[in-house]
């Protein structure tokens, strides 16, 4: 017995061709790249402000804006081009470079600033360590500083201006020979979450 099949209308080939177009590496990268980048950006935005409740430097919002994706031969890469993100994620030692000590902010006024931005800093050694401090305005007045420098001091102090003006001494930075930061895996979304997001985006691209 023999059966002859005559194809009068080929619907399969165009459908397969259409599917093949949707399955190019370029298109799948275009599906997964923005999806994963958006997941990372939303994750960063959810990390909130600093633990001490000091005025925010918007570190994580900046990290979200510095997040982008690119096509690579192996697939897709999501990059975060911001100093400090990798350090928070993987942890590790931080040692002073071009200076003898790290300056760790111990005041909301100093947070997000470099020591060089504060005029009139002086070294204060205590049993608990060495600090960089700035005279309060009253203290500065007692030393008969110029009106101009006093004005600059008030501007540079920020924070609670009244309290700081009354204070004799404002301790701004702690000096440290180095710190060993613990890694924080929660800086990035879990790999399973990234993988699920990419898979879902690819499924939607194929179904389109």
């Amino acid at each position, binding site marked *: 017995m023999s059966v002859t099949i005559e194809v009068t209308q080929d619907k399969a080939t165009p459908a397969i061709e259409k599917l093949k177009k949707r399955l190019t590496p*370029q*298109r799948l990268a*275009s*599906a997964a*790249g*923005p*999806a994963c*980048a*958006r997941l990372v*950006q*939303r994750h960063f*935005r959810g990390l909130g402000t600093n633990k001490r409740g000091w005025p*925010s*430097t*918007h570190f994580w*919002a*900046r990290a*979200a*804006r*510095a997040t*982008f*994706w*690119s096509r*690579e031969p192996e697939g897709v*890469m999501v*990059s*975060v*081009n*911001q*100093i*400090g993100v*990798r*350090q928070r994620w*993987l942890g590790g030692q931080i040692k002073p*470079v071009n200076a003898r000590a790290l300056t760790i902010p111990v005041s909301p006024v100093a947070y*997000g*600033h*470099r020591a*060089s*931005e504060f005029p009139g800093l002086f070294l204060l050694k205590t049993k608990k360590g060495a600090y960089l401090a700035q005279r309060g305005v009253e203290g500065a007045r007692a030393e008969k500083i110029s009106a101009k420098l006093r*004005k*600059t001091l008030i*501007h540079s102090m920020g924070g609670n201006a009244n309290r700081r003006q009354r204070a004799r001494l404002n301790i701004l930075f702690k000096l440290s020979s180095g710190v060993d930061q613990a890694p924080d895996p929660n800086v990035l979304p879990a790999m399973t979450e990234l993988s699920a997001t990419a898979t879902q*985006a690819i499924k*939607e*691209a194929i179904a*389109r």
Partner: protein
Amino acid sequence: MIFDAPIPFREAVKQLAARKVMPTSLSSSELAQLNREVMRTSFTSARTTLEGLLERYKVGVESILNPQQVLREGATQTVTEGMDPASLRAFIKGYLKEIQYRPEEGTEGTIKDLSSDARINLVVKTNVELAQGAGKFVQGNADEDVVDLWPAWELVRYEDRDEPRDWAQRWRLAAQVAGDPKAAACLGLSGRMCALKSSGIWQALGDGEGGYEDTLGNPFPPFAFNSGMWCDDVSRKEATDLGLIEEGAEAKPAQFDLGSLFKEAA
């Protein structure tokens, strides 16, 4: 995934590189009157005639956008080096001190004082975000597949503000001017500020339609000075669910000459 060799955000870095330093004595409102294309391809700041200062800002902004991997002497592992806003601020203050800059009498510590934190922060923030926003805009519009699969943007708040500007109201006015009732309806129905990439609403937001004078003239974020707002990608499925695009309909990119962002200013 590779973690030790960051890839530069090419579009953002390229856009910044194309911007030519333009010293000016114009105020921000006068600058806003200039041709948009000139502004997009210029690196400038209101009433800043110091070319050396603008050059240093540009170098610093590039360092923030594109940190480098370096192997320090005696180290076995590379570290990322580059500026952050605080180190750039210190760098700029150092330069101004070096050239003995003095603010005008009565402007010390204000936005008009080129050495004030407020002024330096604003210049750095605006220029970093402009390059990143342009980069995102190009990446989101240049590729046919990306436009097809991610046909819309969502305007979202990235940074909290003590007194946030009323972006919902701006959205409604911009939707009206751009003739995009779907964008307006999206806000009304879902509370989300989403619109197709091809919508004129993005340029209208950047133009401050409705009489806003804090805008930057671009169809991409940050839209306005210190806005705290940014754009997220919206997938085709979401855009369809939000009523922005019909199922199966062709998605279009923004009507914008992307190449103009990379042309060096004349």
